């Protein structure tokens, strides 16, 4: 799963490797808080995992999710909408979002 993600996101792969040191684990996110925050995301990203111009973000492992969000926050990955959204998120916010979205399974195939 992580490998696939690295390939599809070649530009951010390096963060995934650094990430294991920079961020200890999955257990810091608060799922209920993440669910609340997720309401801001599902205007664009569908909970079903459907993708049509906007990529799916459900069912990711929390580490890659955190790292990808951080690349937007650092403006290391382009997309003005995502950069702006990520800029307003704290570490705890992102970890909570990661924890929540990890619990959702895609219903698209």
């Amino acid at each position, binding site marked *: 799963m992580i490998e696939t993600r690295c390939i599809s996101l070649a530009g951010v792969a390096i963060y995934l490797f650094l990430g294991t040191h920079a961020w200890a684990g999955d257990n810091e996110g608060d799922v209920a808080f993440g669910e*609340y925050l997720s309401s801001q995301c599902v205007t664009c990203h569908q909970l079903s995992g459907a993708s049509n111009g906007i990529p799916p973000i459900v069912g990711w492992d929390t580490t890659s999710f955190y790292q990808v969000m951080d690349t937007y926050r650092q403006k290391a990955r382009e997309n003005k909408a995502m950069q702006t959204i990520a800029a307003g998120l704290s570490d705890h916010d992102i970890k909570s979002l990661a924890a929540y979205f990890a619990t959702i399974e895609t219903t698209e195939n």
Partner: protein
Amino acid sequence: MSINRRHFNAIAGAGALTWGLSANAPALFSAGKPRVVVIGGGAGGATAARYIAKDSKGALDVVLIEPNRKYYTCFFSNLYLGGFRDYESIGHTYEQLATAHGINVVHDWAEAVDRDKKQVRLASGANVAYDRLVVAPGIDLKYDSVPGYSVAASQNMPHAWKSGTEVALLKHQVENMKQGGTFVMVPPPNPYRCPPGPYERISMIAHVFKQKNPNAKIVVLDPKPKFSKQGLFQEGWERHYGGMIEWISPDIHGGIKGVDADAMTVTTDFDTFKADAASVIPAQSAGAIAAKAGLTNDSGWCPINPATMQSTIDKNIHVIGDASIASAMPKSGFSANSQAKSAAMAVRAALTDAQAFPARYANTCWSLIATNDGVKVGATYKAGEAKIEPTNKFISKTGESDDLRMQTYEESVGWYDGISKDIFG
């Protein structure tokens, strides 16, 4: 509970009746759950109903009052006008709200709100009692803000600024305009629904003319000296439709004096413009029920508490979407959807033991200038002391690559799917 619900529907259809709790007749048919009533099943109201029902997991009864059986979004109606979508692709039903979330969707008009008795009177005569009310009626048009304009005049000069079939009428008139004719557009003064909307509409009309009527002209008589994404639109108009669109600022035309829908003329201080087809979008205010309920201030819009979207006039009522005064947030479907979530959380926290987190708001407005040439503007917001305040913002740049513009357009298509599911389930 479902038996009670069916029972209500059956009798309510038959005549005037007060549902559930009222001031002096306690819980006649109610299962005793607190009831949330939502007026208006558009981008704001349907989202609020859905989030309240979904997240309270049966602890609250949710009644949504909306006259239309199908909601045609204004968002992407410009793409329909330009031929990028068909009409049915922008229509949505309320079925999922009922089946997936148990929302009682009542197809009727809210005619009055009795704030002391906490009940809503419907056009059919029935009353619906509420513990909390969410008011999301969108806008109404101030026809008389443009002398000579009226509902009758809108037949020849459609505004097409509310959900529904009027945009199909406008499309018909655009497509059948005489060869080499002039289309005249009068955008609305601030504040109004969807700041970039009139200019996206102009782009889409130009797109149609470019294919079907290449010598046509578009004259825009704007009451405003500047407009949303101006640099991006004007660059795109020059690039794709060179010379077809003439935008005239009030500094030049001196102000709109009036329209004559029979003669098809628009008169400004400076000149009279003869149109072969036209769209006139007048000034706007909160949907009429908001003023009737006493929820508007002198501006014609509804003041709110930025943390909860509660009316500053009545704390049992939340006003969301275009009808509210959301300060820096533009009146958009995205904003209405975002505000609905904050209101839904506040309603659940007030009526159940749900936890309330600090409100966060966001908006993005995409506009299509020509095939695969999309631009966007957006921001995130927080609740300040007295107002909703921006935290971070962005806007597309002039001179961006074709690839980026195409990606931006594709994003907007994904967003339309996403928000439609988020609103209607």
